């Protein structure tokens, strides 16, 4: 008897290669995720087509943008979101500012996340001297005065967005690394990792295929919250002279320039704040949906 399977076992269809519904398809089926995607798309388009969307220049100080005593104008029919302290159109500045802020929120934040996850996961998985060395290096970076580094970089390099992105990545990966480290070291002790090891799975495989997927929720949390913080951090760095310089707008520095005026001219803080919030929320909506989709225990949720 070559085949021990008794007849009452349902015969296997040779290769049931039923296509799994793509993640993308499942994503757009969720209304909240769709809202998130739309917000992200709108922001991207707004940034890309800013010059066509507004009649003003981003650093055009309008004579009629200020009152005689130098106060900015609240939202009105000419300036839809009002003007800033220099009499510039706020909407225009927010549209152009999206360029900087998207760059920071996505590239810088993403890099930080990537480095942090790499380091934290490696350290948490290998422990031993590699882990020790990596984590002590992380401690060192965390304890290191980032602002000082920023100031020094500002002095050495020509201020540019790339440097801000670099500094932000440099500052932010550390925290991600720490959290990833603890979670990974806990995961590594789970039995299914031991099972993988007995299969002879390479460390890279275990890390990528078995540990990383369990970290996705954390990555999503840090990634989405990181958007707000990095966009605001960019403003601090610009303030110290290493980022975009005035009059180039970014959401963060619009808020920073104006935050002391927030009682006198609340719109100057409110609108860019809403922009940051919306972007972060949008990514979070997509992230949460993604998380649900990737989480097998959530299958069957309507």
């Amino acid at each position, binding site marked *: 008897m070559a085949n021990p*399977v008794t007849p009452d076992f349902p015969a296997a269809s040779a290769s049931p290669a039923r296509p799994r519904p793509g993640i993308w398809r499942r994503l757009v089926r969720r209304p909240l995720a769709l809202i998130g995607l739309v917000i992200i798309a709108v922001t991207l388009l707004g940034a890309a087509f800013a010059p066509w969307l507004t009649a003003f220049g981003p650093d055009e100080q309008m004579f009629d943008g200020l009152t005689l005593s130098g106060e900015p104008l609240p939202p009105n029919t000419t300036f839809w979101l009002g003007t800033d302290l220099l009499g510039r159109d706020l909407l225009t500045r927010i549209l152009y500012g999206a360029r900087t802020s998207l760059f920071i929120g996505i590239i810088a934040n993403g890099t930080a996340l990537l480095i942090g996850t790499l380091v934290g996961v490696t350290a948490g998985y290998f422990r031993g001297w590699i882990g020790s060395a990596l984590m002590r290096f992380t401690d060192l970076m965390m304890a290191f005065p980032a602002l000082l580094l920023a100031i020094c970089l500002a002095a050495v390099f020509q201020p540019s967005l790339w440097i801000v992105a670099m500094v932000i990545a440099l500052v932010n990966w550390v925290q991600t690394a720490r959290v990833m480290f603890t979670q990974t070291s806990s995961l590594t002790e789970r039995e299914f990792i031991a099972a993988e090891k007995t299969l*002879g799975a390479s460390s890279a495989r275990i890390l990528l295929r078995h540990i990383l997927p369990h970290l996705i929720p954390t990555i999503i949390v840090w990634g989405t919250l990181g958007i707000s913080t990095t966009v605001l951090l960019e403003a601090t760095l610009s303030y110290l002279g290493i980022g975009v310089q005035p009059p180039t707008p970014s959401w963060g520095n619009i808020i920073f320039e104006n935050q002391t005026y927030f009682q006198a001219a609340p719109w100057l803080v409110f609108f860019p704040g809403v922009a940051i919030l919306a972007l972060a929320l949008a990514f979070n909506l997509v992230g949460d949906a993604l998380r649900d989709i990737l989480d097998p225990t959530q299958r069957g949720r309507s």
Partner: protein
Amino acid sequence: MNPGAAANAAGPSAVASATAAPVLDVSGLTITVRGEEGEREVVSDLSFTLARGETLCIAGESGSGKSMTSLAVMRLLPKPAARIASGAIGFAGKDLAGLDERAMQAIRGNRIAMIFQEPMTSLNPVLSIGRQLIEAIETHTDLSRREARQHAVEALKAVRIPEAESRLGQYPHELSGGMRQRVMIAMALALQPDVLIADEPTTALDVTVQGEVLELLRDLQRRHGTSIILITHDMGVVAEMADRVIVMRNGRMVEQGKVGDIFEAPTQAYTRELLAAVPRMGTGAARGEAEAPAPAAPDAVASVRDLTVRFDRHGGFLGRVTHRVHAVEGVSFDIRPNETLALVGESGCGKSTTAKAIAGLVPFTGSIAVNGRDFAGLSREALKAVKRDVQMIFQDPYASLDPRMRVGDLVAEPMLIHGIGSAAERRERVAALFERVGLRADQMELYPHEFSGGQRQRVCIARALALRPKLIIADESVSALDVSVQARVLELLKELQQEFGIAYLFISHDMAVVENISDRVAVMYLGQIVEMGTRAQVFGDPRHPYTRRLIEAVPIPDPARRRGNFARLVSEIPSVTRPLGNEPQRLRLADVGDGHLVVAEAV
């Protein structure tokens, strides 16, 4: 005494036999789960009743919805996938199916308790077992913390966990599989519920302890009139315990009846098939002794010498080592190609630890060589090659499967790792493997949590087989399978052995299975091997008292030959935990003829 009064008087005087009024009345229960392709019934239109003081055994095919049914009674079906689609669960005048969470809280644990199938994942990994036990007791009694603690210690002692007092401070991962299961049992028993649902409560227990535990259940039943739903594959246990039996298959009840009737005159084909597949002691001999390989062949697949594994136990403020767990203490054996070495022994005696050491998962002293290559001093590449040849099936299948991967990918993974075949070939092979272990190929798309305990176990087996290794370590790998599937899987294992010369290190409590499958048997006790020889030698001529006890304790799958009472051992439970510096004595093995090794002192 009228039945109603008996139902109320939950005293020691309560009668053991079933009384008329049902405690639990399940009618028309249908459970559905939602998957990617819509809803599917896993339990269909199930009705049964459970009388007071009665033991109802549910047996049947693995994956037939037994666990789901019991979870439905507890209203603990896995959310969000599973739900009760229709039906009623009558209990104490209420329909549990429609009760809200708060009302259920008062019933769970207190009135209906449950022992879950997989003890590893069912215990909270970050809480000491003491806390988990004491908490259960405190929730439903108003004992003080100290009394509750005392209670907990007694409960642990009752399930024969050694050193109960100090075990309270241990965490689940520090316990052996059987111990974890006993902790779960202790937890449920301590609550003295009206209805106890025990889902495979003794799969991880050696037969002596199993006997103890079953006796404990009966004792509880006798004293409190507890009704028991016992889900088990072990027909011996069914025969031993059941008043009535339900046989399930594909989510439907196939047959139900008095235990005697079922065993004697099964009406349904499936039941007959099931009973026919029950492994019985003594049948193994039929395989013939001729196959027994020559002793001490030089080309052993694995050769273990003086293997010792110890775990430190920390105590005190500074966390110094105060005690040591001598889990494995100087174990030596060889496994030759084409050979099945069974490792049997009391729960907690170090079987899994030995297995893990061979799989390279715990640090050890001594030497382990696979294919003649000693682990010590192997490069990473070489180790990977060695690992390919040794595959382990873990005792706890759920914990050893990555919950975020589809089982198809999990089974294909070993091939992927070792670069075998193209993606399509691998898929095909996985599908074939699935078939051979009795799973459907379309289940490849599911995730581990969507399977029943037995199905998961089969996934693990398929996974280990995928590589056709030289040595498979199977740690309690067929314990959760119903006997018919079990028979098929065992058949498959044998076949593969013949085809590819695979050697097995087969760890099991089920002496009948061991008798059926093994070529040689090693009996472990307190971390050391006390007897080792061919199957015939060990089963035919057991020399060590522990071996004898083991064989005697095997329940016989025949209700007619039901034993009245297990002798409850009152002796001190021996323990492998010892204070620092107090090392256990190493036992010497003496050859009593033909390579039959027995502890010298016992000869």
